[in-house]
C-alpha cells in the first residue's frame, strides 16, 4: 500500500532523512522506533505532506500512485491520516463541527455530496461509543482545555470517523497514563482491519504491548538501521539503542 523509496528530506536546509525505504502492506502494523532526533516525526510529516519539510530525493507512493507532489489535503483525500503528537486548538469550533467539515471536504474531493445529517449523527454516535467518548465532549471547542488523554482520544476519534487507509500514530502514547493508553490502543485495534495499515511511531515499547506490531524498524540518524519483529522492541527496551550503534560500527 505504502512504498517509501530512498527518501531524503530536509527542514530549513538541514538534512534529516538520509535514504529511507519502507514498504507497508494492507493489514499490517509497523512500529518505528529510535532515539530523539533520529527523524521519526520527520518521516511522519513527510508522508503527510507538511510544507516546511522538503523531500529532496526519492518517492512516496500509495497504492502505486506517486504522492510526493500532492498537497497535504490531497494526501488526506487519498486516505493518509496522521494522529498528531501535539494536536492544535481551534477555539469556537466544536469537535463535531470540525469532523463534520473534514468528512464533507473528503467527500467533496471524491465528488460526493455532503453526508446527510442523520447519517453523520449516527456515525458520530457509533464511533464515540466505540472509543468511550462522552457526548458532552463532542460539543467542546477542538482541543481547547483538553487533557493529554482527551487530545489523543480525540485524534483516534477522528481516525475512526475518517476511516483512513493508512494511519500514522505519532507518539500517541506520550502524555498518557496507563488507563488512557489502553483506551486509545483499544480504539486503534478495533479500527484495524485487513484493508488498512497502521504505522506506530514511539519511543517506548509500552504502547506496543497493546498495539502489537508485525514489524519493528529502528531509525537512527535519518536511516532505518535495523528491522525485525516485535522481539526487536523488547531488545531495545532492555538494552537501549547503543548496542545497535555498536553493531553498525
Amino acid at each position, binding site marked *: 500500500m505504502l512504498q517509501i523509496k530512498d527518501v531524503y528530506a530536509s527542514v530549513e536546509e538541514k538534512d534529516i532523512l538520509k535514504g529511507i525505504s519502507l514498504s507497508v502492506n494492507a493489514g499490517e502494523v509497523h512500529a518505528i522506533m529510535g532515539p530523539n532526533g533520529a527523524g521519526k516525526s520527520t518521516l511522519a510529516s513527510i508522508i503527510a505532506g507538511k510544507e516546511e519539510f522538503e523531500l529532496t530525493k526519492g518517492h512516496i507512493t500509495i497504492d502505486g500512485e506517486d504522492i510526493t507532489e500532492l498537497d497535504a489535503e490531497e494526501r488526506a483525500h487519498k486516505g493518509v491520516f496522521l494522529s498528531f503528537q501535539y494536536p*492544535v486548538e481551534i477555539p469556537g469550533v466544536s469537535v463535531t463541527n470540525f469532523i463534520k467539515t473534514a468528512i464533507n471536504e473528503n467527500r467533496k474531493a471524491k465528488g460526493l455530496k455532503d453526508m446527510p445529517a442523520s447519517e453523520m449523527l449516527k456515525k458520530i454516535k457509533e464511533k464515540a461509543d466505540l472509543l468511550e467518548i462522552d457526548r458532552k465532549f463532542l460539543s467542546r471547542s477542538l482541543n481547547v482545555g483538553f487533557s493529554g488523554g482527551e487530545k489523543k482520544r480525540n485524534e483516534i476519534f477522528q481516525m475512526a470517523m475518517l476511516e483512513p487507509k493508512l494511519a500514522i500514530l505519532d507518539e500517541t502514547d506520550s502524555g498518557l497514563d496507563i488507563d488512557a493508553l489502553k483506551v486509545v490502543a483499544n480504539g486503534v485495534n478495533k479500527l484495524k482491519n485487513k484493508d488498512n495499515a497502521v504505522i506506530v511511531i514511539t519511543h517506548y515499547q509500552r504502547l506496543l504491548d497493546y498495539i502489537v506490531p508485525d514489524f519493528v524498524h529502528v531509525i537512527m540518524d535519518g536511516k532505518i538501521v535495523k528491522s525485525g519483529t516485535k522481539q526487536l522492541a523488547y531488545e531495545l527496551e532492555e538494552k537501549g539503542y547503543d548496542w545497535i550503534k555498536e553493531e553498525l560500527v
Partner: protein
Amino acid sequence: MSKYTEDDLKKELETKEYEYGFYTDLESETFPIGLNEDIVRAISKKKQEPQWMTQWRLDAFKVWKSMQEPQWANVNYKKPDFQAIAYYSAPKAVDPNKTLDDVDPELLAMYKKLGISVDEQKKMNNVAIDIVVDSVSVATTFKKTLSEKGIIFMSISEAIKEHPELVKKYLGTVVPTKDNFYASLNSAVFSDGSFCYIPKGVRCPMELSTYFRINQAGTGQFERTLLIADQGSYVSYLEGCTAPSRDENQLHAAVVELIALDDAEIKYSTVQNWYPGSAEGKGGVYNFVTKRGLCERNAKISWTQVETGSAVTWKYPSCILKGDNSIGEFYSIAVTNNYQQADTGTKMIHLGKNTRSTIISKGISAGKSQNSYRGLVKINASAENARNFSQCDSLLMGNECGAHTFPYIEVKNKTAKIEHEATTSKIGEDQIFYCNQRGIDTEKAIALVVNGFSKEVLNKLPMEFAVEAQKLLEISLEGSVG
C-alpha cells in the same frame, strides 16, 4: 512539493473582485459639487421640507463650518475635500408614491444583482425592507402589513412630512447637531434614510431592514436613521451596505439614532460591506458614522455589527444607559484586509442605577491592514451598582497587519463592577496544517478558524443574516494567509 504559495493566493485574491462593484446606469439628478448655505437650502427645498427642518439644517451647517475633522483615530488617509463632493444625487425615475410597480426596471435589475428581491423572497423571509440609493429612499416594502400594527416604517423624508411631530420630538436628541464633525455635516445635508416608530407594547412581527447603496460617482452618502421604540415594544432592525468599485474614495457619513423608551428593546444589526478599495489600497469608501442609542428605564439596546468593507472605518455604536436597570450590548466583528483601516468600538455611558453593559469585540486583521478597537466604559456618579463586561479579541493573519486595543474606563461610583478581558492570537501554520491533514484545504481552514473566532458575535445576528455574514467573512479573507 508544489504547495499553494502566498503568491498564488494573492493572485487569486486579485482576480476575486468585489462582488458588488458594478455600477448601474440610472438616470440621475445630481447637484453641483460643493457645499454652502444655498446647497443646504436646495436640499431642503428639493425634499419639500417644512421651514423648521430647513432651519435645523442651517443651524447644523453653521456649527459644522466652525468644526475640525477629528484626528485622534488610529487611521491615516487623505482628508476628503468637502467642496469636491456632490451632496445630493437621486435616481430620476423614482416616483414620489413609490409603489414597486413604478420603480425603474434598471433599479429592479440592480436589486436583483445585489441579491435583494424586493417582493416575494423577502416576504417569505419575513423582512420588510427600505432601500436607499445614493441620496434617496427608493422603495419601502410591507408598509401596509406594518401599519396595521401601528408601526411606521418609511423613509425619513416622508416621515418629516407625514409625522413631523415625532421627527421634531426625537431628531437630534441622541446625536445632537453639534455632536461631532461628521454628525454635524450629516445633519446639514442628509438626504434620506429610514424612519421607524414602534407603538407602545407592540412587538414588531418582522425584521425591518434598510439597504444602502452608493451608485453615483463623486457623491457622498449621508443617510439619517431614526428609530423609536415606544414603551414596552420590541423591534429587530438590520442594515446592509454596498457600493460600486471606484478608484476615488467615496464619503459615507451616516447618523443613526435609537430611542428605547421604558421597557422597550431594540436589536440593531449591521452588515457593512462598502467597497473596501483595491488590493493596492486604491479607492474605497470612507465610512464615518455616528450611531447612538438612548435607553430609558428597563430598556435594552443591542448593537451587532459585522464590518468587512470600507477603506477607512470610524464608527462607535454607543448606548446611553439613562434609565434605571437599562441594558446596553455591543457585539462586533471587524475584518480588515489589504490596506483597509478600521477604528471601531463602542461607548457605554452608565447614568441610571443597576445599568448593565456587555461588549464583545472581535477584530480580524489580514494583509497590510490596521484594525483598532476603541471603547469607553463610563460609570457616572449616579449609576449605583453598574456593571460592565468587556472582551476584546484580536486575530492576526500574516506578519504585515496590525491589531490595536484602546479601552478607556472612567468610573465615578465605587459600587461599579467592571471586567475587561483581551486576547491576541494568530492563525498559525500548525492550525492550517492540522486542518489540511484532515482533508480541509487552506481557504476552508481559514474560514473555519475565523468562524470559530467570531462565533459569539455571529450567534447574535438574526438567523437569516448569520449565514450571509459568515459567507461574507470568508470572501473578505480569501487569500489572506500563505
